[in-house]
């Protein structure tokens, strides 16, 4: 309909009336549909398992010790360099003397979670940490441990992510299609 309006009386009238009927019909249809609003904070949306939320440090499940060995791999891989770690050497294993994470500059890219060899740093399924003072978002080690105990952890851990990505050694021809004898996680549905 490459026609400018205002050229032919009856056709214009017909076109406009038809347009009105259809567009208003769609709007009316949506009027009747249920609104999609989620009344946060009374209702919360269901967050998926892999949700990348706040960062936290964890304790070992059996011994209750801190998982972090102060290896600084997360510090080196962080793209905006928000993590700063100092290692504390001890007899059996090392610890992190200080561990600061500047949450206000964090990109939530999950790379630190991916590289951690002991699954010490993980992400939570929540992002509820709004404050009115930016200094409260400079998380130190105690704060990170508290967050780890306060919220639900998300699925991703260092070893979990690396296992998902690493190709199994038993299948050199990994470009083959579905008949390849590869055994990995995550099958097609």
């Amino acid at each position, binding site marked *: 309909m490459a026609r400018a309006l*205002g050229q032919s009386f009856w056709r214009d009238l017909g076109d*406009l009336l038809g347009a009105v009927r259809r567009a208003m019909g769609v709007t009316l249809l949506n009027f009747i549909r*249920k*609104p*999609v*609003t989620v009344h946060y904070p009374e209702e919360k949306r269901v967050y998926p398992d892999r949700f990348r939320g706040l960062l936290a440090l964890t304790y070992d499940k059996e011994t209750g010790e801190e998982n972090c060995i102060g290896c600084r791999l997360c510090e080196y891989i962080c793209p905006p360099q928000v993590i700063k770690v100092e290692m504390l050497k001890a007899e059996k294993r090392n610890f992190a003397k200080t561990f600061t994470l500047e949450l206000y500059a964090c990109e939530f890219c999950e790379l630190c979670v991916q590289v951690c060899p002991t699954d010490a740093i993980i992400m939570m399924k929540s992002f509820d940490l709004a404050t009115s003072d930016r200094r409260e978002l400079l998380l130190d080690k105690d704060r990170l441990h508290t967050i780890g105990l306060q919220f639900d952890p998300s699925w991703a851990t260092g070893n979990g992510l690396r296992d998902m990505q690493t190709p199994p050694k038993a299948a050199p021809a990994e470009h083959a299609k579905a008949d390849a004898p590869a055994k990995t996680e995550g099958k097609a549905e």
Partner: protein
Amino acid sequence: MLSAIYFFVVGFIVLNAIIGMVTYVTLLERKFAARMQSRIGPYRVGPHGLLQPIADALKLMMKEDVVPRTADRAVYNLAPIVFLLPCMLIFATLPFAPGLGVADLNIGILFFLAVSAMEIVGLFMGGWGSNNKYALLSVMRAVNQIISYDLPFVFVALVPVLLTGSLKLSDIAAAQPDLLHWFIFYPVLGQLAFLAYIVTTLAAENRVPFDILEAESELIAGFRVEYSGMKFALIQLGEYAHVIGTSFLGALLFLGAWGGPGPAWLGPLWFLLKAMFVFLLVTWIRWSFVRIRVDQILAISWKLLLPFSLLLLMATAVVVAW
């Protein structure tokens, strides 16, 4: 003397009622529009957002009144008032029930149409006084548009006048005593006139799809761009008052004003409901269409609506003469 006091009191009541209604009509529009967009409108301020207009009004009253340094002060400051006055004045002629109205003039509808067209002066003053290219551009377009659409507006509003035979608004309302006699149900002419009335109302009040005056995405806020605080509130008030005024007029001309089942004192309530129906119809159109360009708007007016409304008027004249 007594009649003067009577008119003053009634006028005062009507004016306050209008202002109260204007603020709550904004809430009605927002909730209605929200439902059409799969969301809920204002919800937090007061139960289901009922106190939202009050919060808005308080906010606007407390805002700093920023006046641009290079603005033409007298024109800039007077513009909201000159814009608001005609929009309030149109309510003077509306009869809300038989015998209940501020001034039921013999030339009621003529007064209504003439005064409602005077808001252009206020608009232009606002656009010029702001000393802002966006504002100037928008009022140039708006003046064009309102002038072009006032003619079809008058012609279409004259159709019920012809069918009644009187310019007095209460006579027009009285000529529609029950449902079957509403002018909207008048064969062919009534429906066409109502349709054209809705379209010209949209244009005369700068509602989408004819809202090049505001054109929020092109010209930010059109002529309102330099106004803040209470002056902005006055402009909003005037705009919505005009919308409601023409909704009431539409209800009166086509939907039988205060007629409805029940006792006579329910008349004003029915009038209000019908006006809200017209208002919601206009709102429904507003939230369904994209805006069209100014030359296309003028093309629709001069090439489509004006011949259409003239033909309609002549047809009505022929029908009435028979």
